[in-house]
């Protein structure tokens, strides 16, 4: 009457367990693969660029002589761009996410917005460059300014921030909202005092990753009109500027081999920037992830 042959089961057990072990190793190798690539990449860049990395490198502007070339203008330019991009993309992104998650009813219009956002997330960055050029540089008359560049970048990463924020807002436990509403708090009070503070770690981790993408973007700013050579620091939002990736691209395409090392040094700086930002994201995530 027994349909299940326990002997058969036992016989097969060994093979299944071995299969599991094998795949454990395969999966581990696959994961390491990406890490190995990262390691090779880092190794190559560091060995090439490290010698050029000195205090002077941060203190000098670009120069036709590799030994004098520094990243000052590009570094500060990148910071300025981020100073525009971060608040604007956060405000718009979190606002949109709040609207979609907290206020919008499920209807055609919100589905449309949602579709639209995920579609924007896939639009190639260079297309955003074309948009920024037409809209901000030309139509709004902002010229090739930090403001125009920062706004373009803000639009570029906006969809990513919206999606990350939605995710974070959605994962705020319902019972916290209920607790607040249950005390007679209004909807906005609940959102502002409970939902947002609780969602902030999630919003920030998602957003910081988006910001680090913005820091590394070359193509859209090339189109919007970042300069390749700038030997002064920006003074206000209407100043002209350059950013690190463009500076690096410029160096890398110089004929003098020494500039290749300068480019590598520039990449290291960009990397450090990236890693600092990512670490902040990780810290925030780890610090708050256990809560509630």
């Amino acid at each position: 009457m027994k349909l299940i042959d326990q002997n058969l089961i036992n016989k097969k057990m060994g093979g299944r367990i071995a299969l599991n072990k094998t795949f454990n190793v395969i999966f581990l190798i696959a994961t390491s693969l990406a890490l190995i690539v990262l390691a090779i990449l880092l190794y190559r860049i560091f060995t090439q660029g490290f010698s050029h990395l000195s205090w002077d490198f941060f203190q000098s502007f670009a120069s036709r002589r590799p030994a004098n070339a520094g990243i000052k203008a590009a570094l500060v330019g990148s910071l300025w761009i981020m100073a525009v991009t971060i608040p604007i993309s956060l405000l718009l992104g979190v606002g949109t996410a709040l609207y979609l998650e907290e206020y919008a009813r499920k209807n055609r219009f919100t589905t449309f917005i949602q579709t639209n956002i995920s579609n924007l997330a896939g639009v190639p960055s260079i297309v955003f460059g074309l948009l920024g050029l037409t809209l901000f540089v030309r139509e709004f008359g902002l010229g090739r300014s930090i403001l125009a560049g920062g706004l373009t970048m803000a639009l570029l990463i906006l969809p990513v921030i919206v999606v990350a924020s939605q995710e974070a807002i959605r994962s705020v436990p319902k019972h916290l909202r209920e607790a607040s509403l249950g005390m007679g708090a209004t909807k906005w009070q609940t959102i502002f005092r409970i939902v947002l503070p609780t969602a902030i770690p999630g919003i920030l981790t998602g957003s910081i990753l988006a910001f680090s993408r913005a820091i590394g973007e070359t193509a859209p700013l090339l189109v919007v009109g970042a300069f390749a050579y700038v030997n002064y620091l920006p003074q206000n939002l209407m100043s002209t500027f350059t950013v690190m990736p463009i500076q690096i691209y410029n160096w890398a395409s110089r004929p003098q081999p020494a500039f290749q090392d300068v480019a590598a040094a520039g990449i290291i700086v960009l990397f450090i920037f990236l890693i600092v930002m990512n670490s902040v994201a990780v810290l925030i995530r780890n610090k708050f992830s256990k809560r509630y």
Partner: protein
Amino acid sequence: MATSNSQTVRDLIKKNKEKRSLLNGVEKAVPIILLLTAIVSILTTFGIVFTLLFETITFFTRVPILDFFTQRDWYPFYGEPSYGIIALISGTLLVTVIAVIVAVPVGLASAIFLSEYASERTRRIIKPILEVLAGIPTIVYGFFALTFVTPVLQSLVPGLGFFNALSPGIVVGIMIVPMIASLSEDAMSSVPNSMREGALAMGATKFEVSMKVVLPAAVSGIMASIVLAISRAIGETMIVTLAGGATPKLTFDPTESIQTMTAYIVQVSSGDAGYGTTVYYSIYAVGMTLFVFTLMMNLLAQYITKRFREEY
């Protein structure tokens, strides 16, 4: 003391109630303000479409739309130019397909490892490192493809050109691995533990649980991550510009040099083409094609998420 204060609190609240009109105003204004921010995303899309559309139309007044889609060659710079987008599309697809072949198995395997096998600690260390990989500027990847991957491949694959679709394809694949790994891992982690327990309690191995329970349950999230990664691969610019060559060509041979749609846009927008020339307008037509491509990919992603979503 206490009682007197008790009065105070209730009364205070009552009193504040009466001047709550401000709060009511805020309550009414906030959704409108937030709606406005949400509309920015729509405006952005309209902005993109209009930016592309006008120039695209100009382009099509000079080059018949039929030629654009049916000619096999993309030679915009010669005496008798030919604008057959298929050549650029084939370059794009070739790179994308290679990237997907690299990224999907590696990305999924990493996702499974992180979500099902790795300890919490390992996951907490590895995931952020993978994310660094996703944030590396693409020009860095581009030089990496050119100066490292291509030479390595040349020693492995005889007859591999200096520029080819293979090397940037692989590197684009590596670039999108973290995206697939991270998003799929999220999807898999959100499969309730109770399901894993159910299978494990029947004597299933981790591998069986991963393949037969977790993967199918997370399939919509995984598919969405893949489609997203694909649209990122389609839109990738600098890597293919640097390592793919600049020869548009209708080919499916990965050892040949190609050009993608994005690389063409970069070539022209940082190049020599005169303002107002047909070549200049052609980048908008190509941009439009790209936009339509990503739009289709996204609609596909949405369809997939809906279609394959497992209810649990």
